[in-house]
């Protein structure tokens, strides 16, 4: 088991190293940020001063090593635009994003798996057909459009829920959270629904496909031949058997939801990292872009690593194969 963990860990580190190079080169090939940071009427001296200060006069590989050296010390540089450490900037925005993403993904998973199992178990009932129709919509309709419609309906027309912002927040361990207050919660609802809809559709499809396939296997037929009640078969056999693909996708989706939060945060003016990155791309604030991408890559790699560990824990074949 330990060997397995170490092996996966080394893989994760290697992927991170590759990602950092790609991200760095990619981002640093974009435009010339100096035009944005300093006013066009500035003198040549001020220009060169700024270029030196930002380290833009050195060769790319040198910039990379300086960047990596600083990164390992927890220093991701300063934002060209806000002129505060990037880590502080992103750290301040991260809780808002995490809050939104976790609420969306968890509710999408719980609801989606239940609906998907039902749709896979009774594929011909009208309820299942309705569920599938909804999932086709959730899958196809671009998320920004859903956001618009949610705002149009619930905020503009009905006036039930606020259209943007985080609302009242409560500080827990020095970090502001929206969900504990009623007002904050009312602000979360629309963006969370918006963000969750795609994941919900995905979970429904996945659980349905898995259920349909597994219900045809001899394992289920044998359980029925032994006289097991359908409820027991679903709870004990089916749920265990579909858990592996679902956990994989759950993990991957956790990461991609972080990315999709970019769209939702923009629509609902949710002050998270997604909105920050869109603004930073607009003004070519390189350190923020690099830090954001590296952060996302890091989260991805970490999530994949954790999923591997979870697999090893739930699948007896893997668990023992890894010990041997």
């Amino acid at each position, binding site marked *: 088991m330990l060997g397995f963990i170490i092996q996966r860990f080394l893989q994760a580190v290697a992927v991170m190293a590759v990602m950092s190079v790609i991200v760095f080169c990619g981002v640093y090939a974009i435009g010339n940020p100096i035009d944005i940071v300093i006013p066009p009427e500035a003198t040549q001296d001020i220009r060169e001063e700024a270029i030196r200060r930002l380290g833009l006069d050195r060769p790319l590989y040198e910039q990379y090593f300086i960047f990596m050296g600083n990164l390992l010390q927890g220093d991701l540089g300063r934002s060209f635009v806000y002129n505060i450490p990037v880590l502080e900037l992103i750290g301040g925005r991260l809780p808002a994003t995490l809050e939104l993403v976790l609420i969306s993904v968890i509710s999408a998973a719980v609801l989606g798996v239940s609906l998907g199992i039902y749709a896979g178990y009774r594929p*011909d009932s009208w309820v299942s057909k309705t569920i599938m129709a909804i999932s086709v919509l959730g899958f196809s309709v671009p998320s920004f459009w859903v956001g618009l419609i949610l705002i149009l309906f619930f905020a503009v027309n009905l006036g039930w829920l606020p259209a943007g912002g985080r609302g009242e927040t409560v500080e827990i361990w020095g970090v502001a959270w929206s969900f504990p207050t009623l007002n904050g919660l009312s602000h979360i609802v629309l963006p969370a629904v918006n963000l969750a809809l795609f994941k919900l559709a995905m979970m429904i499809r996945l659980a349905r496909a898995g259920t349909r396939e597994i219900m*045809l*296997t*001899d*394992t289920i*037929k*044998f*359980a*029925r*031949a*032994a*006289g*097991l*009640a359908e409820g*027991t078969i679903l709870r*004990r*056999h089916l749920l*265990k*058997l579909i*858990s592996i693909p679902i956990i994989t996708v759950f993990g991957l989706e956790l990461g991609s939801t972080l990315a999709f939060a970019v769209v939702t945060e923009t629509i609902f003016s949710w002050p998270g990292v997604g909105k920050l990155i869109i603004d930073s791309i607009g003004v070519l604030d390189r350190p923020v872009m690099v830090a954001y991408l590296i952060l996302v890559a890091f989260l991805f790699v970490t999530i994949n690593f954790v999923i591997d560990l979870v697999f090893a824990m*739930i*699948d*007896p*074949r893997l668990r*023992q194969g890894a010990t041997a």
Partner: protein
Amino acid sequence: MREPILSVSDLTTHFFTRAGVVKAVDGVSFDLAKGEIMGLVGESGSGKTVTGFSLLGLVDAPGRIVKGSVKLNGTELTTLSDPELRARRGHEISMIFQDPIATLNPMLTIGQQMRMAIDAHEWLSKRAADARAAELLTQVGIPSAAARLRGYPHEFSGGMRQRVAIAIALLHRPAVIVADEPTTALDVSIQAQILFQMRDLAAEMGTAMVWISHDLAVVSSLASKLAVMYAGRVVEQGPTATLLRDPRHPYTAGLISSLPAMSQPGMPLSQIPGTTPSLLSLPPGCPFAPRCDRATKACGTAPEMTMEDNRGWRCFHPVSAFKEATV
């Protein structure tokens, strides 16, 4: 004859597919006495497995039992509600499948799976259930059974897994077991072991068996009577010894003469020409006619079962080991 424990008559199961109606089981009838073993023989696609599923009411959509009756201990199974049927499955009638790797759930321990099968029919404490499970495992020949309850299926060999499946099927000492080629996927040496162990266990528990197989040699060493299926129909049935010695249906005769034991050393095995017809587009009349060298115009209509003493066959031109029969 003794009072039958399982009585099947005119059992007919069809699959209503997009491409048409597949007549997988067509008018199958037989009786099984307490403790009796019947072999159900046929090529793959002849409907023997679907017959097995039909007995337990386990036919999946788009299949359905369209007519006929299955009486278990005097109770008609085909008209029972789902919960009533479930209460009998695994309790009074159970089934074993061909591939033990596919039947057991790889994510649950043997003990968990056996306890689920026990809990389905009676309430026992965990300890009592474990004791019952271990007892059954010991009976089917698994050593240090109590410890192995904590094991997962992948820790067992194929033969051992099949023994576990058999133990699960026997947990409630059912009156009837349907065994669908349970030894086909196993090594030859283990096949024979399991075969005779099951025969002994069935005798010990008074359990009757329907042993489904494509292998006439295996079945005839085990079963006291045989039913030979072809294209969804039983074409011949009767006591094993009688059928082997004196087959009447040309298909049965063909099966027997293609047994390796029947051939001369060094001579090629005899075989039946042609292939099984598709169940979607059966020829009118006797489905075997296109492959039969005795077929005449009469075979354009389907022959009824001709009964004689304790045997029967569906053929207008039966063969006989002793005399050439004519119609």
